[in-house]
């Protein structure tokens, strides 16, 4: 035991290598997506790829700092870190800089910092701290509401700054709560909510209502022995149908037209070819170009710096949210599948490590990291390929941006530090 403790390199090298691969390959694609003409220097600070190169170097500095701090620090100071993050978000209302309609940035001279990217690890620390507290029992409603509050505060602040995409990411914590003992009912309810929403929007209220009725009858027939009381069935059915009405109302009256369009495209609700053609040029433009770029890569891709659509900057925001389309065009099915596999491996590795933690704090935090990375990955890649409605969030480690890169790096490396300390006594 002791000898193992003394080993210098006790970090999880698999996770670190996966991280390095993703960051490195990400930069290569940022270079493709952002270079204009000849490349003079890879550190050309006037170009995104040059800046990203510097961000990456600084990220290594951050890693060194994160890993050199004692593991216990993160648990002890989690509340303070969380408070600082919340304060930073509040401060945006006073000092924030508005970019593309979202007030999410602090500007210091030429540098902009996006606190919401850092709020993710801060919230994760706070959630881990609260759940791992001896007195917390996630099965009780009181604690459920309190943990929810920890999440809702930063999420609401971010939503108020008009960055709906980043808010959605906070849904990732559901996976953490479920792992830590949240009742099955919540999962059933969540699945039901998603199903009812999709069914209502896709097929309309009537068909959805009939389906719900059939399901209720079916469930009652199947569970002959443990059949719930009839009033329960009726109550659930009534609630579901009520919810369906709510979804309809929310979609038609509360969502903004561009959000409606995104959902209608995702669910293929629009059938009029003329309007679809029109949409391809307006709100569908990004998705359309991105799908075309990916598809044109075919099996092996066009090669590094050879993507004609990437070089021609046909996909807007290609070096940030749509970076995956560059991978698709230049590296083809092979390259893009590799990226998907790298992400899946990294997330699964983190999950595996989290389950191996002795301390509940470390395990919950690990779960938070895996969940947040997963939600980002799923939404971003799904969006770029047209599987998920357009939500503007970056691909971790890949997309251009200092705050994002640093936020995710800190998020990941705090866990790597905690993991390296798992056999120590607390």
């Amino acid at each position, binding site marked *: 035991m002791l000898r193992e403790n003394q080993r210098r390199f006790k970090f999880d090298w698999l996770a670190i290598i996966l991280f390095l691969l993703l960051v490195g390959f990400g930069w290569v694609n940022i270079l493709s997506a952002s270079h204009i003409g000849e490349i003079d220097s890879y550190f050309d600070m006037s170009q995104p790829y040059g800046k990203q190169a510097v961000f990456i170097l600084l990220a290594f500095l951050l890693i060194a700092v994160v890993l050199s701090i004692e593991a216990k620090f993160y648990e002890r100071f989690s509340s303070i870190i969380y408070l600082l993050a919340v304060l930073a978000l509040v401060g945006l209302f006073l000092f924030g800089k508005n970019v593309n309609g979202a007030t999410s940035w602090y500007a210091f001279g030429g540098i902009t910092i996006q606190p919401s990217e850092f709020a993710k690890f801060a919230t994760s620390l706070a959630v881990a701290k609260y759940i791992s507290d001896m007195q917390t029992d996630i099965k009780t409603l009181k604690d459920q509401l309190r943990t929810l509050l920890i999440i809702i505060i930063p999420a609401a602040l971010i939503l108020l700054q008009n960055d709906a995409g980043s808010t959605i990411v906070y849904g990732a914590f559901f996976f953490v709560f479920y*792992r830590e003992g949240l009742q099955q009912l919540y999962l059933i309810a969540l699945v039901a909510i998603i199903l009812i929403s999709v069914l209502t929007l896709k097929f309309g209220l009537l068909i959805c209502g009939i389906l719900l009725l059939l399901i209720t009858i079916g469930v009652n027939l199947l569970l002959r022995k443990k059949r719930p009381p009839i009033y329960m069935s009726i109550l659930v059915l009534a609630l579901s149908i009520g919810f369906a009405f709510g979804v309809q109302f929310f979609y038609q009256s509360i969502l903004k037209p561009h959000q409606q369009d995104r959902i209608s495209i995702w669910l293929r609700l629009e059938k009029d070819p003329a309007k679809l053609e029109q949409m391809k040029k307006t709100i569908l433009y990004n998705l359309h170009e991105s799908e075309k770029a990916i598809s044109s*890569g075919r099996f092996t891709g066009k090669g590094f710096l050879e993507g004609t659509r990437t070089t021609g*900057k046909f996909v807007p925001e290609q070096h940030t949210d749509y970076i995956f389309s560059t991978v*698709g065009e230049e590296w083809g099915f092979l390259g893009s599948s590799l990226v998907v596999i790298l992400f899946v491996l990294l997330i*699964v590795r983190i999950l595996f490590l989290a389950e191996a933690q002795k301390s509940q704090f470390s395990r919950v935090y690990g*779960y938070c990291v*895996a969940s947040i990375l997963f939600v980002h990955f799923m939404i971003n890649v799904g969006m770029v*390929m047209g599987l998920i409605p357009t939500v503007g969030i970056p691909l971790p480690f890949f997309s251009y941006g200092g705050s994002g890169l640093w936020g995710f790096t800190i998020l990941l490396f705090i866990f790597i530090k905690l993991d390296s300390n798992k056999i120590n006594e607390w």
Partner: protein
Amino acid sequence: MRKLLLLLTVLTVGLVFVARLFYLQVYTSESYNLFEDNAIRKVYDYPKRGYVYDRNGKLLVANQPSYDVMFIPREVKPLDTTEFCKLLNITKERFIETYKKAYRYSPRLPSVFLSHLSKEDYAVLQEKMRKFEGFYIQKRSLRAYQTTIGANVLGDIGEVNRTIIKNRPYYKMGDLIGKQGVELSYEEILRGVKGIKFIQKDRFNKDIGPYKNGSYDTLPQPGKDIKITIDSELQEYGELLMTNKRGGIIAIEPSSGEILTMVTGPSYNPNLLVGRNRSKNYTKLHYDTIAKPLFDRSLLAQYAPGSPFKVINALIGLQEEVVTTEEKFSCRMGYYYGGRKLTGCHHHKSPVNMNSGIAQSCNAYFVNVYRRIVDKYNDAEKGMNIWSKHAKSFGLGNFLNNDLSVGRPGRIPDGDYYNKAYGKNRWGSTYIVSNAIGQGEVEATPIQLANMAAAIGNRGFYYTPHIIKSIEGETIDPNFTTPKYTTIDKKHFDPIIDGMFDVYNDGTASTLRIPGIEICGKTGTAENFVKIDSVKTQLTDHSIFVAFAPKDNPKIAIAVFVENGYWGSRFAGRMASLMIEKYLKGHITRTDMENWILTHSLENEYAKPYSGAPFKINGETTLQVVDNVKRKSKTL
């Protein structure tokens, strides 16, 4: 179980993503084609099209610059259409129509918006082009004809159509291609190979630099100049003679097969099919279904050759040894079989031997010879097959397989042909005696007749008549420089040639003699039936003349065919004699004959069937006299 939720979700999403990637990149992805990538602009560099010279090195076809307005429909942004239309001098309706048509073709590929701007229009437009997104100007080269003659020989170039683009991927929308004449048959040599530059565009359709540093770009290869076998002076003279007539003239140099002249009447000025008015003019020519100026009669007019074909029968008779040159046949104004007159004839001395038979064009003589050939083996089918084989060895009855863009095979029937018509063994030589005098089932085009004359003049061989003399830096098809031998022995030709010589001396063409030139010829008159309102009606006969000169080592072989010219020596014979004199002497001494041709028109004759009124033909008509046709060129 709780541990598995996220794990399974992650794995499922990973699988779904890989499946989606497979669907997008492997399953539905079309094969990548640089030409269809709209991120890459293709800029073509059109090479100079080769020049065309005549046999004496006179420039016939050169080039002139032209500017086309091109556009890519999808990239067109809202613009001031009124100003744009005014600049281009078009209506707004035309603008919309052109736009829609091009959009249907492809919203992404360039289409021609307006072709052939004048230099002045170009200068004005070029300054304002920046205002019209999606439009650009492409410079290309148009033909500049240095002459007003030879439209049927030179042909023209025009824009490729959709079918061509589909079948021949070299051609892109708006490219020019040879449509007729040598422009068509030597298209690939004249055109060269266009160069192409691939340019990377951005999403605003701005050029941002060469694609892959220009490694895919190619340089244009200029088209090659060609020299054609036409003697432009003789061609011009032939076209002059053909004024107010319809028909064709083909003159060939027998010692090489080179086509000296290829006249069709009526013709048109080749400059009509250049530039912006091309399509208007082309439509006008194309829909003139009466005069048919686009129909090259020298190559396509397939008719019964009439009497000139008799010499072939004489040659076959000698070769098959069924007749001697001295044997005489009597003629009682026709050929009688079993008391029935099979063929009529005109008045001449009787009986006739072979020489007089040719010189006097005696029908009865040739029916006798022909029947002997067919009946030689007491098997009409076998006899006909042998006869057919001999006749075909003169280049008759099939395509000549030459380098002209159009042609007709003519027809030489064989035994099988009549078996199909009458049934096997149900016909005999008396059924088909019309072939003896070049009527009946025998048909030939003027170029085949000229080639036949060349083969006779050469005493038994010919070179495939062709239009190409030389290609810059290349050799011409060896097929054109290899002699083709007839199945008739050389020794049999001299008596026939003597007969053809006597046609001029004291025969049917004795009035056409040219002092100092020994011409061998043969007149022909072909009956002419057409359907008018589905009633078979006879019109005035066609005038045909076939000749070569001089008698020994002939320099020119010629066939002239004049529609409704009545008898052989009347129009065709005169024109052939004048052409021969023009070619051999360089000037005309028989000005009386020239004057007659230039002052007599057949236009009245051609108008008759369309007048709706009853009309007379042949001997009952009078010729229309016109003013001497103005000479087109001072050099004449």
